[in-house]
């Protein structure tokens, strides 16, 4: 059985049915039309692979019909059938897009041969069209990919330089151009060694020209900035080196954080080891019996050692709080916390501490004070640190006032004291871990320098900020501003 659909357009019923019979026996699908208008109607219904057109039709002629068909997007192979065949008509017909010319009368074999040939051509044409479409699509995709790669590389924060196998620059993204202080047209197709030569980047130029490995990574300094430079060779499917990509990532911030961490750990070790050394020294005196065999003279020293151990425990607790304040754990979401109850607890404790030195603690909360959006434990820690400091660094008979009010959409909690104040030069260091202002007034007061660091982190974690105003010898005011 053969496959294919054929439309017969002929005004003679006998011719149409004859052809139909032959073709249907071969297994083709067949449609027929008696004139041009009917043919166009039939083509609206469905597509045909082959159209057999009579040259003479009642309403038009075969060639005109063919033009109309083509204009309407008909892609059928066309065979012109005519009894008035002559060479001129044949040439004209072929020029106008007729694929075959079948003179009447013709035998069934002629017809079958023509139809089979046209169907083969049709198939070949369809396949060619498909291939061309595919090729065009892939070219389009390639162009698109190239553009995408280019925009991707351009949008990278890292500086990227791509060289071909000869070491000439084929792509430099904007950060790289900034680094090289050159324009796009100044770098393209120029040797990378020349562009990178001379300064701190020279070793990279050499490596780009002749890399020891397919992938090298090194650190380098450029002015104030530190960079991680990586050079990667890219190869084609055959393993041939096609070029190399240089990427420079700015690691200054990472390095600064690492150094800060290093400093923090160094200070922390000092803060942990110092009390241990003192405790060890105090106990050594006891075991050495430096003060004789009687126990009494040692009691104050043992009490000191005991106290130092308590302080160490507090230090470790604060270090843990500090570490915890750096990350947000699940189930620790901020809540709307009424300020007054938390403050009452904090103030009660502060009053007990202040009472021995005659320091009074008062609160002035606005009547319509909204709740604070913060983790309840954090609010307690912030307030107890600030109020605790205000009592600790106060003068005998001084006062502490805690105020709460709404200001410009912020909930402002203010802790004001009449204490020793802070030197202006030291105000910025106040929030640093382990920092304590060393003055005659503070020498006798204990502390590990972590309280305000904790306060700062907790307030910032809640989306708030801190303000401090202080006059040495007169007092300080710490303000916490939380989103209301």
């Amino acid at each position, binding site marked *: 059985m053969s496959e294919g659909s054929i439309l017969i357009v002929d005004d003679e019923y006998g011719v149409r049915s004859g052809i139909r019979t032959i073709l249907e026996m071969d297994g083709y699908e067949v449609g027929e039309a008696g004139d041009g208008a009917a043919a166009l109607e039939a083509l609206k219904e469905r597509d045909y692979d082959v159209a057999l057109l009579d040259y003479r039709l009642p309403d038009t002629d075969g060639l005109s019909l063919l033009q109309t068909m083509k204009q309407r997007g008909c892609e059928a192979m066309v065979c012109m059938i005519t009894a008035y065949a002559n060479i001129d008509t044949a040439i004209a017909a072929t020029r106008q897009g007729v694929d075959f010319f079948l003179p009447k009368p013709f035998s069934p074999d002629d017809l079958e041969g023509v139809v089979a040939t046209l169907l083969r051509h049709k198939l070949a044409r369809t396949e060619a069209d498909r291939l061309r479409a595919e090729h065009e699509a892939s070219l389009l995709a390639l162009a698109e990919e190239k553009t995408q790669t280019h925009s991707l590389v351009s949008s990278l924060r890292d500086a990227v330089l791509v060289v071909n196998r000869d070491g000439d620059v084929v792509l430099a993204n904007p950060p790289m151009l900034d680094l090289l202080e050159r324009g796009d047209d100044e770098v393209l197709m120029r040797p990378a060694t020349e562009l990178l030569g001379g300064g701190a980047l020279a070793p990279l130029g050499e490596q780009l020209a002749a890399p020891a490995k397919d992938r090298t990574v090194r650190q380098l300094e450029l002015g104030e900035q530190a960079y991680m430079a990586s050079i990667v060779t890219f190869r084609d499917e055959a393993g041939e080196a096609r070029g190399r990509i240089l990427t420079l990532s700015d690691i200054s911030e990472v390095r600064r954080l690492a150094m800060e961490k290093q400093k923090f*750990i*160094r200070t922390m*070790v*000092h803060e942990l*080891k*110092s*009390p*241990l*050394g*003192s*405790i*060890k*020294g*105090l106990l*050594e*005196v006891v075991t*050495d019996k*430096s*003060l004789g065999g009687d126990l009494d003279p040692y009691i104050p*020293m043992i009490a*000191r*050692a005991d106290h*130092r151990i308590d302080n160490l425990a507090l230090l470790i607790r604060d270090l843990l709080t500090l570490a915890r304040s750096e990350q947000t754990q699940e189930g620790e979401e901020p809540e709307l916390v009424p300020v007054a109850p938390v403050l009452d607890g904090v103030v009660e404790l502060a009053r007990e501490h202040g009472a021995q030195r005659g320091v009074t603690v008062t609160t002035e909360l606005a009547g319509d004070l909204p709740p604070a959006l913060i983790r309840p434990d954090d609010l307690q820690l912030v307030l107890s640190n600030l109020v605790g400091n205000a009592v600790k660094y106060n003068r005998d008979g001084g006062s502490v006032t805690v105020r709460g009010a709404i200001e410009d959409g912020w909930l402002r909690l203010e802790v004001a004291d009449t204490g020793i104040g802070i030197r202006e030069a030291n105000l910025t260091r106040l929030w640093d871990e382990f920092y304590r202002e*060393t003055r005659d007034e503070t*020498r006798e007061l204990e502390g590990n320098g972590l309280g305000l660091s904790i306060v700062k982190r907790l307030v910032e974690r809640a989306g708030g900020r801190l303000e401090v105003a202080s006059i040495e010898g007169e007092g300080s005011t710490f303000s916490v501003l939380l989103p209301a």
Partner: protein
Amino acid sequence: MMTTATTVLFVDDDRDFLESKKVYLEARGYRVLTAESPDAAMATLEDETPAIIFLDLMMEHVDDGFRLGYRIGKDERLGHIPLVMLSGVAAETGTRFDGEAGGLREWSRLTRFLDKPVTGQQVLAVIEELAVA
């Protein structure tokens, strides 16, 4: 025969440390002076010429010990006194600190480093070895 007690100066901002070393060494016949800050140390040194000085490296500033060492070292009357630096961070900072220490040691004329915590026993051994008559 009259013998003058050997005088030792400790400079450290940790009062308990000073106290324990004082008691430990006084029990062994030493005269012990203490200072809680570099300034207090310089004040003490105006009237005193100890046989050895122990300095804490990290006091108010991380390098107070070095600075004080330099001040003492360049002083004509005090320059000969052995200086022993006490530090809790020498080990932790490792090579970097030691690498710098060569120059710094010369600059501040340090005789020796001791890693904290330092026992009375260690201090005693260093005094017996280094203290000038």
